[in-house]
């Protein structure tokens, strides 16, 4: 396979990492929390989508329904779990979200079992040949969905009052409340949106790697690396980093013998370490500039 082929494959995988990375950034911006359970929440809802398709619901409807149902799941997680730990040491929150990851993993396993299940793709199973490169409709679809999500988020955050309020609460809760913004509701909305994104990521990758209670663990590593590389607070940074990671992983896997498919997962981590050594705030992150 040519290098171009690897790039195409990488962009497709990177789109999925990007969707989950966006969810991580959304939550981190709003509440300062890195939600290690973000992917697993997506897994739970992807299983719900699977159950719907098994009952005869068309896959597109099932995925959209699962995303919609994710919103209240995210809201409830913030309201009843995360908020209780507000103001606590960062490590406590890490333990809480990792604990949630393990708990959800167990719940999914208990309900649906640990045997992998095929998950129908949102896209027709067709291959398009462009020059020497074989592109599947699914790969194009993943990228298009990601671009649509990015554009949608950009419009929400930059053009709507709701988005402005979300940015305000992420910046300064107290001042936002003094301006009459319902801070708690906005935090919950941020978690709800993130949960929907995580579910989208899970439903996009499930056709490729099969539905499995632990299917998002590797994706979470890639997405975390992308989010951190992007600066944790920069949606654009996270997306760019996720695409770079997707491509780098594929090229390294194909051309550097010692890496192969087994060590592919080390690529984003290496990238992360190298970048953070040089720029601790991430590629796109801002250093805090606050004058008193």
């Amino acid at each position, binding site marked *: 396979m040519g290098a171009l082929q690897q790039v195409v494959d990488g962009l497709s995988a990177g789109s999925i990492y990007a969707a989950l990375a966006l969810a991580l950034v959304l939550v981190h911006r709003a509440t300062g929390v890195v939600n290690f359970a973000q992917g697993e929440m997506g897994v739970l809802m992807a299983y719900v989508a699977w159950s719907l398709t098994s009952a005869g619901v068309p896959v597109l409807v099932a995925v959209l329904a699962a995303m919609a149902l994710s919103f209240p799941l995210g809201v409830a997680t913030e309201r009843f779990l995360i908020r209780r730990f507000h103001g606590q040491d960062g490590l406590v929150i890490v333990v809480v979200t990792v604990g949630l990851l393990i708990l959800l993993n167990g719940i999914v396993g208990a309900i649906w079992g640990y045997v992998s299940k095929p998950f129908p793709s949102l896209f027709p199973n067709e291959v398009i040949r462009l020059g020497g490169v074989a592109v599947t409709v699914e790969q194009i679809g993943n990228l298009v969905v990601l671009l649509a999500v990015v554009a949608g988020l950009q419009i929400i955050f930059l053009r709507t*009052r709701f988005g*402005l*309020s979300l*940015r*305000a609460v*992420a*910046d*300064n809760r*107290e*001042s*936002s*409340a*003094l*301006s*009459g*913004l*319902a*801070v708690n509701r906005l935090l919950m909305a941020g978690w709800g949106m993130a949960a929907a994104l995580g579910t989208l990521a899970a439903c996009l990758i499930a056709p490729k790697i099969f539905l499995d209670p632990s299917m998002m663990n590797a994706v979470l590593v890639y997405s975390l690396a992308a989010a951190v590389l992007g600066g944790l607070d920069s949606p654009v940074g996270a997306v760019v980093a996720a695409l770079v990671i997707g491509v780098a992983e594929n090229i390294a896997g194909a051309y550097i013998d010692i890496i192969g498919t087994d060590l592919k997962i080390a690529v984003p981590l290496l990238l992360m370490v190298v970048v953070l050594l040089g720029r601790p705030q991430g590629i796109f992150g*801002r250093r*805090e*500039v*606050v*004058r*008193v």
Partner: protein
Amino acid sequence: MSLLELRGVHASYSDGGQVLHGVDLTVQEGGVTALLGANGAGKTSTLRAVSGMLRRGGSLRFDGREITSLRTDEIARLGIAHVPQGRGTLTGLSALDNLRVGSARRRDRREVERDLERCLNLFPRLRQRLGSTAGNLSGGEQQMLAIARALMSRPRLLLLDEPSLGLAPKITVEVFEAIAGLRAEWSLAIVIVEQNADLALGMAQQAVVLESGRVAIAGTAAALAGNDDVRQAYLGG
């Protein structure tokens, strides 16, 4: 009827210490009340009690309505705008977005645009800085931005906590000239906390002096300003 009425208000921070021990204070519709006292007397805490930012008890009434159990954002939506000590700028947002946050709960779009123009006329310095990240503004500009953001919500009561803190004398004059015109221009009532007692008493009708979380003396601004004993004891001569 007075617009804001505090009766026997006590308050404590979450770490337990009680900081207000029965504060009385009233603000008339369209009036200015100066809140004075030494550092640590409880001025900031009193304003925070009004805005529901610390645990408080006693009676706090706004426009005849009990607000003692309301949340901060609910109190703000009733028409109380609070410019906190230290300004509370949304540092990562642009100056314009800060102002938009101030008006985010309003639905009267055309009035909002007019108010934005009025704010920029009030603080012409802000006009060139609208696109700048608020955290990059100078201290004076941030104070102006904080006041303008408060005005953008069209409040009936404005709480100003040491607006001159950390500002150069020239900028302080600029800020206070703007504040002095607010009451008539925006038809609102004001509670102003200020270290410089003369500045505050100059624009107030009523004044309250706090000492250790209690009201030490209260009366008309003119009476307090003219009383040498009071000035000696509480207002730094």
